[in-house]
């Protein structure tokens, strides 16, 4: 049996960081807006912390370095594809180096509310080169578990509308010009994103969780699976 399980990077990794120094656990929850990601993560953090485990959280567009600028740029929809893609990669890298890496070094459980897969799926749908994306995100550590909360696009529409009474421009992929009708664009875009996840599933081996069910049922399944990841220590 191997003594201590350490992490690996998908590619080159990052300068000055040794993969062997990374302990802890990295757990990723992926899924569209309305898939219940945030609810699930809040529940998981609550569960882990009450059972005495230190956690850290990251998510998209939360970096000190570029989150504000990224938000501004998106509001105006002025950035082109490669630029937006690199801007998001910068946002990810900043959180990676300032939160994920130090937390893993300290043996924390890091919960990522979306990870490089969403970023890659969005870019794949927009026609970016696979190889380019793989190289770019070679800086990312391989997580200990990735859960993809899968919800049918029709159900996502219902959930998003009941929450916000509107569909988000970007989550509807309106920049792609799939349809001028937001409702139709949302369905088409979410379908395309799910396909991209299916393609990536073969390479990255996500655990696909049926999130059409109640939040409780989903959380039960997640806890069970995460427990077995944590028991591996």
């Amino acid at each position: 049996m191997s003594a201590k399980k350490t992490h690996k990077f998908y590619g080159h990794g990052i300068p000055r960081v040794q993969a062997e120094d990374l302990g802890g656990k990295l757990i990723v929850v992926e899924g569209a807006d309305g898939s219940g990601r945030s609810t699930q993560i809040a529940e998981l953090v609550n569960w882990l912390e009450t059972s005495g485990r230190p956690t850290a959280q990251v998510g998209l567009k939360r970096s000190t370095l570029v989150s504000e600028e990224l938000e501004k740029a998106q509001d105006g929809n002025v950035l082109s594809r490669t630029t937006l893609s690199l801007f998001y990669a910068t946002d990810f890298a900043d959180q990676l180096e300032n939160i994920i890496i130090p937390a893993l070094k300290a043996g924390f459980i890091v919960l990522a509310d979306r990870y490089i897969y969403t970023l890659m799926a969005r870019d794949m749908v927009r026609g970016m080169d696979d190889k380019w994306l793989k190289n770019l995100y070679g800086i990312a550590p391989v997580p200990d578990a990735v859960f993809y909360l899968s919800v049918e696009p029709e159900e996502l529409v219902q959930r998003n509308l009941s929450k916000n009474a509107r569909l988000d421009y970007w989550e509807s992929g309106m920049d792609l010009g799939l349809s001028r009708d937001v409702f139709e664009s949302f369905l088409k875009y979410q379908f395309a994103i799910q396909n991209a996840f299916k393609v990536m599933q073969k390479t990255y081996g996500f655990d696909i969780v049926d999130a059409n069910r109640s939040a409780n049922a989903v959380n039960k399944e997640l806890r069970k699976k995460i427990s077995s990841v944590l028991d591996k220590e």
Partner: protein
Amino acid sequence: MKTFAEMNFPGRLIAVEGLDGSGKSTQIYLLKRWLEAEGIKVYFSEWNSSELVKSATSKGKKRELLTPTTFSLIHATDFADRYERHLVPLLRAGYIVLCDRYVFTAFARDVTRGCPPDWVRGNYSFACAPDLTMFFKADLEVSLNRILEGRPKLKFFEAGMDLRLSTDPYESFKIFQGRILDQYLAMSKEFNFVIMDANENVEKQQVLVRKLVSEKIDLKKFKRKSPLPLPPSLVNDRDEKDELEDKAA
């Protein structure tokens, strides 16, 4: 890496590279003035100048938040923004685009900071190669003196202080620039740099620059078909003159 000519762009891109203080910016500025005077469609773009990304970059630099990885990515973002929104459309419209620094600056700097060369090059692989890259090679001492004489306060990242080469910014800057120069020289063949002697006097260098450019690029193809619109003050003059001529006729 293919050039814009090889990718059948109607425009051409000329890049200058070199250390800070090598005099490359002066040379490309004089080149721009000449091309403009010749009535050629020309556009100038500078490293690290995209409006959108600039505020993030300067925040990162001021607060010393950047790591080699984020330093590299934020500059790649800046470059991509200028590339996709300015350079590509202009090159498709048949412009001569002049770049004060191009991807090679990232290749040299980021690798010096410890980023893997393949990773950096991969990130910039969306960009075509310049049709002409002039590398201004001055003796390290000459470049250092030009910078250190005129601008005594060195910025943190500019001096490579993040690399912990020395606690003295001047010492750090010298070591850092020396390493960047090594990186430049190591890639100069691979990317067809034309090496310019930057120790030579400015006028002589410019004569050479203009000669090189006109040999490499058939400049008459890039002339404006219609003259640039005149400033409003002159437009009014011309209207009056035209009216007079009309009356005379």
